[in-house]
């Protein structure tokens, strides 16, 4: 194990034991630095220097929810990151967030020994090595110190929402390798990442959506239908290329041939409508190269079952663009909204269900831009946002 990993592990252990704010070496209290708020307030505050991205929210009751997100482990350093989780309780009409805990950290020296990120969690009934677990996580990870490229997707389970999550096996569930694509050398892309879990039956039948970045063709959103009723120790991994292409019929933004790459998904309570929040394309050309808005869509669940053709179901855009203007606080100076709005999730129950597709909540990621803030990488925050459909789903 590298020295860095030993330090991270020790720090995480401190957090798990004492619930302290994650700090750098030696457990020293750090100075809190405010992130620039140019729009609506974040759901919770973390110091500048720690980015909060890729949220996943499960609401376990009317008064309790958990937010999972990607966070770097060392202030102002992006050399490693992990899956943090915060518990929130509703008090006086306001969600109170507790201190972050580590739900999943990089492995010692495995395929995800560099970083883990972009997790999604769903409730259900899962068996692993003979033990029952009520929470399943899908996450992206790699062995790199300085980038998220060549990611693969792993699974982990936990008996409690706060974790810690136990990895399912030592190999990724969805694998990716640059060697799969060309005889002339490696063109490493982002690999397979951005998983989104939906429980199909509120038990063991799971829909797993994910993104795959193929250097030869196009980036696409795929999905798998997984019957996880057997012991997960027997679950065989597969190549990320062998998922089902999610139809992009009806998906439209300012880019041709857009699809639901990087999206988060949920089902309505009756299980008949699939709802999605995705990044609005094209993404910004300047740093950070992420989306400037998110889009909300819905489709009949049959979009997952039918082959794509002229008569197959299509997506309906419910809210074309949630952008900076939607995040402005006009009553206050200096809050015209966020220039970067991306990587959103649907706030759902533990099974990724929402009551209906007309009104629900999102949590999105905001960021400052390099042109304004040199520390833009460490400014991302998470924000709640109430969605009203512009059209009837």
């Amino acid at each position: 194990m590298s020295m860095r990993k030993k330090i991270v592990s020790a720090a995480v252990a401190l957090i798990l034991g004492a619930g302290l704010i994650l700090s750098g070496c030696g457990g020293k209290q750090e100075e809190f630095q405010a992130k620039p708020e140019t729009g609506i307030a974040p759901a919770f505050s973390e110091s500048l220097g720690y980015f909060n991205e890729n949220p996943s929210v499960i609401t376990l009751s009317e008064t309790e929810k958990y937010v999972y997100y990607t966070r770097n482990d060392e202030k102002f350093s992006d050399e490693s990151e992990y899956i943090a989780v915060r518990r929130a309780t509703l008090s006086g009409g306001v969600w109170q967030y507790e201190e972050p805990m580590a739900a999943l950290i990089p492995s010692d020296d495995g395929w995800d020994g560099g970083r883990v990120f972009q997790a999604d969690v769903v409730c259900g009934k899962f068996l692993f090595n003979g033990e029952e677990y009520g929470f399943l996580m899908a996450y992206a990870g790699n062995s790199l110190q300085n980038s998220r490229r060549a990611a693969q997707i792993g699974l982990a389970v936990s008996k409690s929402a706060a974790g810690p999550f136990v990895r399912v096996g030592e190999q990724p569930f969805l694998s990716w390798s640059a060697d799969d694509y060309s005889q002339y050398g490696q063109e490493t892309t982002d690999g397979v990442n951005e998983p989104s879990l939906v429980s199909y039956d509120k038990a063991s039948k799971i829909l797993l959506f994910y993104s795959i970045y193929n250097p030869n063709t196009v980036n696409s959103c795929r999905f798998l239908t997984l019957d996880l009723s057997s012991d997960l120790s027997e679950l065989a991994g597969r190549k990320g290329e062998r998922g089902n292409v999610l139809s992009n019929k009806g998906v439209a933004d300012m880019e041709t041939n857009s699809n639901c790459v990087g999206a988060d998904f949920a089902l309505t309570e009756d299980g008949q409508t699939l709802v999605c929040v995705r990044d609005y394309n094209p993404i910004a050309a300047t740093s950070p190269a992420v989306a400037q808005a998110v889009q909300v869509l819905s489709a009949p669940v049959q979009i997952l079952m039918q082959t794509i053709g002229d008569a197959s179901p299509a997506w309906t855009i419910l809210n074309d663009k949630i952008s900076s203007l939607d995040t402005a606080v006009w009553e206050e100076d200096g809050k015209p909204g966020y220039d970067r709005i991306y990587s959103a999730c649907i706030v759902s129950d533990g099974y990724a269900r929402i009551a209906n597709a007309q009104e629900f909540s999102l949590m999105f990621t905001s960021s400052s831009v390099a042109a304004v803030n040199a520390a833009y990488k460490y400014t991302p925050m998470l924000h709640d946002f109430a969605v009203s459909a512009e059209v009837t789903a």
Partner: protein
Amino acid sequence: MFRKITALLFCAIFCFGSGMSTMPANAASEAENVFVEQTLQTYDGIYMQVKGSPADNYRKIGIVADEPLAVQPFLSVRFRNLADAAVPFCVTLEDSEGNKWKTGYNGSPQDYQEHFYIPEDTEEVQTVKEYYGCMYLTKEIGGGEILIDMTKLTCIFGAPLTDIKKIFFGLPAAYNPAEKLELIDISSAETEGLSLSDGEFSDADGNAATDAEIIASLQRTTFFDFTKVSSDEELDALFADRTLLKCNNDDAVTSTFDSYIALGKTETQKAVSLGQDCMEGIKYSLRQDSTLTSDDPESPNYCADKFGYIRIADLTDAPVAAGDALAIKMSALYNKSAFRIIVIDSDGEAYRAGAAAGEYPFVSEDGKIGQMPTYYNCLWPEKKAGTLLLEYPVFSLQSAGSCDIVNNRVADKKLGEIAEIYLSMDMAETSGEAKNRKIAIASVANVEFGSETIDILADLTKYSVTSDKNEIADANFAEPKNSVIAVPMEKSAFKNGNWVLGRATVAELAEKAPISPQRVGDVKILDNFAILDKGYSQEEKDSIIGDFYSLYGERSYLSAVSAGGKDALCWTMGNYVTDYQNVSGGYCGLTVNPVASAQDWGDWSGAKGMTLWVKNPQSHEISFNIAFQQVIDSQTVSYRMDYENSTVYAADTRTGEEFSFPTSTTIYLPGDFEGWLRLDFSVFGRYSATGPDEIDFSHEVIALKITSYLYDNSDMSLIFGYVGLYYEDFSVNWAFDEGGKGILDRMSEGA
């Protein structure tokens, strides 16, 4: 094209093997030359097909009623168009007193009379035109009910009709050689409650009637219903008892009817199987260093006629009267070795077999009748031994001087006595395949169906190869009587010198493995990429399989492999460094031609998409594309997978995984994949310069093209096990309940 199969399916005939021998005819040596007959289709009504050109134009069926019918405002004729051609017809009505009226308006396409037409299975009332003395139904008229306005008939004789005693239904055969229709019934009809004025129907109140109201108002009295005729035997009996009559243009019974019109309840195909062995016959091929013709008038090799000619039968000493057809026992030794047959009659006229479209019977060694297609005025044989049947009416007179043959003039324009028979092959520089083409011919015969006579004109198995070679060919044959190279064949000496004669080898006579089963679930198999193994070595197999598929573009190689538990075709791209020639934009190409043993190979109507069993033996992706070609209005039109971000559906037959992946401008097949792919036709677009944008499978498909970019795929291989069409919707592989049927489910249906 409108089709309706009512009884025996063509494929059922292949499966059940109904080819049967009739009485053996004249036999040469111990070889058995026999007639073969096969049932094609049984119709609801009766089929009528033009097969000749009578001098007086019309041949008619006369129908005599026991009890005359009353005259009604309309005569109803129900029919179907069985040809992709016009189906004009005339009707003549005669009453009990001998008065006769007919559809006799001459006019023109601009000067015509109108009658009514209800297309089959519609609620529409359209109009059709009467001119040139007949109901001139163009090829777009697919079939339905014609309502002939009786007030528009022309009087031939006498007074107005008092009743209808006889009806004569005629086809203008002399001017419509492709006409073929199904006659269902003829009735008198009226529209109850509606009246016709100035071409418009109206009710009693003068309100215009809708199409549905017109159709609903029709009251018919049947004059003759051909659907009530149950068999050809019953049909023959009706002709025998003169309920039905076979008549000429003057409505008189004629014995020549059958020479010009084929009709019946059940359509059968007659052909011939010659018994001579192609391995004992003569192989005709071109030298690899042949001097090919140029289309540049400045070139020393310029020839207006790019075809070469070699005589395969010399009957000048005793010309033979042409019977019904020419039969040729042959085998293409290289797939799709395009050729023509030229017959010279005793007055020096040249007649060519090879047309712009169509097909001719070809009886394979197992006695089953298939078809050999013709297009681009050539015949396109599959690499398979059998007997080609060319009925003499399909030969077309060549204009004087158009063929580079000594004898090629125009005289009486009738093929009378056969004096010479030539094989002709393309020798043009622009034909990339010219030097690869080779054909073995064992015998040529003159056939008469009526007398059931098979007269061998030339038995090429009688010749033995000698070492005595002349300057024209590499091989000469003993017994120079009927020798094929005794005299210069044609005017161009250099074209004469291109021919190479010899004997076919065992490998050259190898055949493809028959496609069995032809259907796998919802898939129709077009090719199984396998040869009929007769104990060949691997080297022979690699050579043989290469003769069935044409390669083009950058260098690539074919070999026979085993994959998926069966023989398969391995296609290996050349090396980008050593093989790159910048041909065809850097692409390797593979042509898959129609396979005769596949059921209706070229008919893709009703299919939802293409499917292939492929294997990528590499651990990384390999890219390829697939296209198909049609001939539309004499032009080759091509469609290929043409849209980025299209979805390809896949089923791995080893792991059972079903998944899908998007395309770029080509298909990137995942590494280590082995199984079925499905491509919906909606992902195909036209990429030829001309042709309709919308795919139209009413036109036959003539070939598949598979391409692969040489640079990306240098030295890489792609293995093909099957190619076919799928016909049913399928669903994404759904692990939960209530999902639909995936690819493997669809393919196991009916198993």
